[in-house]
Structure formats: structure tokens, C-alpha cells
């Protein structure tokens, strides 16, 4: 039996320290946690930035390092620093080394880097090793060469290699959510259908229980089944909470694609072992003839400057759609004269907060709000131009009249300057799988002394 302690769904989102201690008392074989996701958007991969603050990340990691020390077992983090680029791995290593400065012990840190170069991806495209996944955008060499960040999602083989090299702390780049949890059970001979299914169910920590905020869960991987229980005494795993997790952020509730194959959970059984522990069996693993890893990439699709205007005047609120339409037309017509550009390359988006800012053209309801906000988003080919256009439109957002017959109105801006520079607009542009002859082929694995 292999026991995996999962402290939470992601490093940076809190977990119960008491629950973690309870987990340690049960003698787990490994602590595994995820560090990232694309769920907060393309910016993070575009810039190799972490979504969570350094202080919070370091604070939680300190607890996990101490827990590792107590139990003397490996600690693994996948998708370090949200996006899992090579820089994100370096960032996490630096945090780790800082925390370990006072440790006397010789600890071994393993890093697995998964950033891809443009050359690697272009060459894969040319040799037919890039396969299109569902709803993938069209790609070309030009698009790949435009990418500012590209990563491959590792599976278990790469983490197993670092474990085999006796790393105490494994800091992995981009990985599937499940890989860090499934690695040790698979290495120890647990059948893949059981290992991947248990990993999927526990990848968000206690989200598969009645108290998601408590974070910690424990998964016991056996030959024919796995058992999962939350480590917060007030939380419960029930057949319903556990099986419902297959739905989460997964487009197909029965199939989960991983490097090298897929998990099929159509014929699985969930039984309550107690009022808080569930036993699951029946997951099937179907290997692909060719090993492949999913890749992600983002490119810059322009530069943005935004502003927010608030309108409380009842006449203008009532006629807000007409006002925005007239304003947009007027300003778009001015772009050529003022800047020598047109509305095809410079985009002026005005989102009416209080009306359809959330759903856009899908919105079907309307009612009279007390006030509206106008979120202006300027997208241009350079930051300088986006800033210039935002400054140009500012007086009109302040004073544009509905008709020639009325006095100039004056609206409200909540801050000065009214414009906020947003920087580059990043866009996801890959949804592809990269075929590999060897799972370790493109991943850079190193194991070194923490204090070395």
C-alpha cells in the first residue's frame, strides 16, 4: 500500500495545519501538491509569474518542508509557480534554499524543467510530431515563433526519474494536476487505473470532501482499489463528493487524458468504508501506442490601457447604449487623423458595467440600473499607442454629449490618472500534443544538494 498526503489543491491557497499534522501521524510515503493551472489566464505563462504571492507561497512551503523533515519522506510540487516555466522552477528553488539555509542536513533537491524553445516546437511541427487536440486554434511557424512562453505538461515518468535519483524535494515545472500524486504509486506497482483515478480525485485536496477549505486529504493506493479520506476531522468524503470530483474542470466526466494514455472511469464503484472514507475501484487505464505530452503556449496579442468611467445621471444611464455607440463611432473615426491607424488594428472596447459587461452579446435581460460603469479597454500594437489613445479618449469619456442640443455633461472617474497601463495582452495559442520517443526526451532533470 502506498499512502499519499495531499495538503491542498494548490500551494498558496491555505490548508489546515492541524489536518496536516494528523496526516503526518498516519505515516504517509510521500507529500504531493500541485502549484499551478491555466485557470487564471495566459498572463502567468506569458510572463513566468506566480499567481500567488511569494510570502504566502514561502509561508506554506515552509510548513511542508517541516512536515517532510518530520516524516523523512519525499515532497513533490508540480506546476511550480502557477505556470511551471523554467524560471518558475528557479523561483521555487530560490524560495526553498532560503527556507533551508539554517538546516544542517544534506537535502537533495530535484528539479524537472519543462519549458520548450521555439526551435523545439517549430521542429516538432515540421516533422509532424505535433498533434491537434480538441478545439485547438490554427497554428503556424510564425505563431510559434511569436510565443513568449511554452511548456510541456509532464506525466509521472519524469517525476519518477527524480525520485529514483533520491531527491528529497522535487520541484517540477508544468505537470498534469495528477502527475505528482500518481508518480510514486505507479512506481511501486499500483495498477495505473487505480493510481491515476486516485490522483485525479485528490488533485484538488479536500475539494472532494464536504469541507473543501480544510485542504488536506490522504489517499491509500492498494492493488485493487484506493481509499480516500479528508484529514480534517470535521470533513467527510462520501461516494457522492468523491465521484462528483471527476466532473470538475473536466470536459468529459468519464475520460481523463494523461501523458501516455487515458483513464476511463465509466465502470467504477464508490463505496463508503466509514462515514468519512470512500473506497474506489474499477478505473481502467488505456495506454496509447505513442507517448505524447500536452503543450501550452502564449503569445502577445497587443498592448492594453484601460479606464473606468462612472455615470449616475439618470438621463445618460437611460440612454447608455446610444451614448456608447455614438462615442465609439466618433472616437474610431478620429483614430486615422490623430494617430494614422484604424479600428481594425486599434480596438476600442467599451463594456457597460450594470448592463452586459459579463455576458456581452449573450445577455438577454435588461433593466434600468441606478448607475453604470464604462470599462474602456484600448488594445493597440504598442503600449505607447495604447496609452496615447487612452489619453485621447479621456476628455470624451468625461464630457461627451448625447446630442448637439444638450449641454456638455461631466461624469465621474474614480482615480487619477484615469488610465491604467495593463501591459501586454497575452493569448493562449496552442492546444496540441507533442509526440516523444522517450518520456524524458525534452525534460531537464537535475538533482543537487540544497546547501551546495
Amino acid at each position, binding site marked *: 500500500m502506498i499512502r499519499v498526503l495531499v495538503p491542498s489543491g494548490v500551494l498558496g491557497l491555505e490548508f489546515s495545519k492541524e489536518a496536516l499534522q494528523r496526516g503526518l501521524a498516519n505515516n504517509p510515503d510521500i507529500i504531493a501538491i500541485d502549484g499551478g493551472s491555466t485557470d487564471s489566464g495566459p498572463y502567468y505563462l506569458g510572463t513566468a509569474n506566480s499567481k500567488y504571492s511569494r510570502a504566502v507561497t514561502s509561508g506554506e512551503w515552509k510548513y511542508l518542508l517541516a512536515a517532510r523533515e518530520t516524516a523523512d519522506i519525499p515532497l513533490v510540487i508540480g506546476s511550480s509557480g502557477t505556470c511551471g516555466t523554467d524560471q518558475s522552477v528557479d523561483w521555487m528553488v530560490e524560495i526553498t534554499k532560503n527556507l533551508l539555509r539554517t538546516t544542517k542536513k544534506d537535502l537533495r533537491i530535484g528539479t524537472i524543467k519543462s519549458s520548450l524553445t521555439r526551435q523545439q516546437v517549430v521542429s516538432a511541427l515540421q516533422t509532424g510530431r505535433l498533434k491537434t487536440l480538441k478545439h485547438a486554434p490554427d497554428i503556424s511557424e510564425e505563431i510559434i515563433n511569436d510565443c513568449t512562453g511554452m511548456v510541456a505538461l509532464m506525466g509521472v515518468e519524469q517525476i519518477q526519474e527524480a525520485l529514483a535519483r533520491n531527491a528529497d524535494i522535487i520541484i517540477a515545472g508544468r505537470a498534469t494536476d495528477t502527475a505528482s500524486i500518481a508518480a510514486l504509486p505507479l512506481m511501486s506497482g499500483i495498477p495505473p487505473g487505480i493510481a491515476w483515478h486516485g490522483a485525479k480525485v485528490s488533485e484538488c485536496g479536500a475539494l472532494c470532501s464536504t469541507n473543501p477549505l480544510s485542504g488536506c486529504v490522504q489517499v491509500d493506493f492498494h492493488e485493487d482499489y484506493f481509499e480516500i479520506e479528508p484529514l480534517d476531522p470535521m470533513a467527510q468524503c462520501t461516494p457522492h463528493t468523491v465521484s462528483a470530483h471527476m466532473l470538475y474542470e473536466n470536459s468529459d*466526466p468519464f475520460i481523463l487524458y494523461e501523458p501516455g494514455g487515458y483513464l476511463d472511469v465509466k465502470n467504477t464503484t464508490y463505496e463508503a468504508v466509514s462515514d468519512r472514507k470512500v473506497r474506489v475501484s474499477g478505473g481502467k487505464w488505456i495506454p496509447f501506442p505513442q507517448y505524447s505530452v500536452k503543450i501550452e503556449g502564449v503569445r502577445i496579442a497587443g498592448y492594453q490601457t484601460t479606464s473606468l468611467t462612472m455615470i449616475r445621471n439618470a438621463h445618460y444611464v437611460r440612454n447608455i447604449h446610444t451614448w456608447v455607440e455614438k462615442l465609439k463611432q466618433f472616437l474610431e473615426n478620429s483614430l486615422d487623423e490623430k494617430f494614422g491607424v484604424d479600428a481594425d488594428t486599434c480596438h476600442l472596447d467599451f463594456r457597460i458595467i450594470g448592463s452586459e459587461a459579463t455576458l456581452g452579446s449573450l445577455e438577454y435581460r435588461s433593466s434600468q440600473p441606478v448607475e453604470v460603469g464604462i470599462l474602456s479597454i484600448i488594445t493597440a500594437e504598442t503600449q505607447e499607442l495604447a496609452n496615447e489613445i487612452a489619453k485621447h479618449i479621456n476628455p470624451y469619456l468625461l464630457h461627451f454629449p448625447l446630442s448637439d442640443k444638450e449641454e456638455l455633461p461631466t461624469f465621474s472617474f474614480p482615480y487619477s490618472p484615469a488610465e491604467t497601463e495593463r501591459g501586454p495582452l497575452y*493569448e493562449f495559442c496552442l492546444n496540441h500534443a507533442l509526440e516523444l520517443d522517450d518520456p524524458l526526451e525534452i525534460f531537464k532533470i537535475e538533482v543537487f544538494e540544497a546547501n551546495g
Partner: protein
Amino acid sequence: MANLRDKVFKIRSKNAGPFTVTVDIFCRNQNSLKRILGLLDGDTLSHLYNVKKDSFEIFEIPDLNVIKISFPRTHIQGSRLDRDMHGAQFAELLNEMELPDNF
């Protein structure tokens, strides 16, 4: 007139990667699930989400009384015209879907 949210436990939506949105409808029982499934044809969903009707994948999960609907995003997550980074508000259109009088 009743809305779909009045007849179910909950409806939620979320990204399933940057290119797909997935909606989960937690029905109250098997009978209700079947009746709701009958309402959710391609035309109805296409009208709600302005996505081609053959792009919707509809799954029935009888053990959970859940209907899952996955469809491609019209605007890729985080791209210029996207308005909902997490895809979480798409569920509201189904929550508010008006039900036939005799439902």
C-alpha cells in the same frame, strides 16, 4: 414562470482548459434529469450560448443525477474579447432558463 434553477440542486460552469467551458447541472432525481435532458437540445443550447449546435457534448451521469454540457469557447480564455476568465458565469444563462408552463 419557473426557471431551471428552481428545479435543480445547482448549476455551475467552469473552464475545462483555455478552449472549453463545461457546465454541470445537478438534478434532484433521475426522473427530473430525464425531463431536463429533454429540454436541452442543440437548438436551445445554441441559442443560449451562440455556439454551433453540433459543438455541444452532452453527458448523462446517472449515479450523480448530473447532466454535463461541454462546448468550445467563442472567445479563448483571456483573449481580447473574453469577458469571463474562469468561465464561471456561463452557468447563469441555464440557471435562468425559463421552463415550459407544464414542466
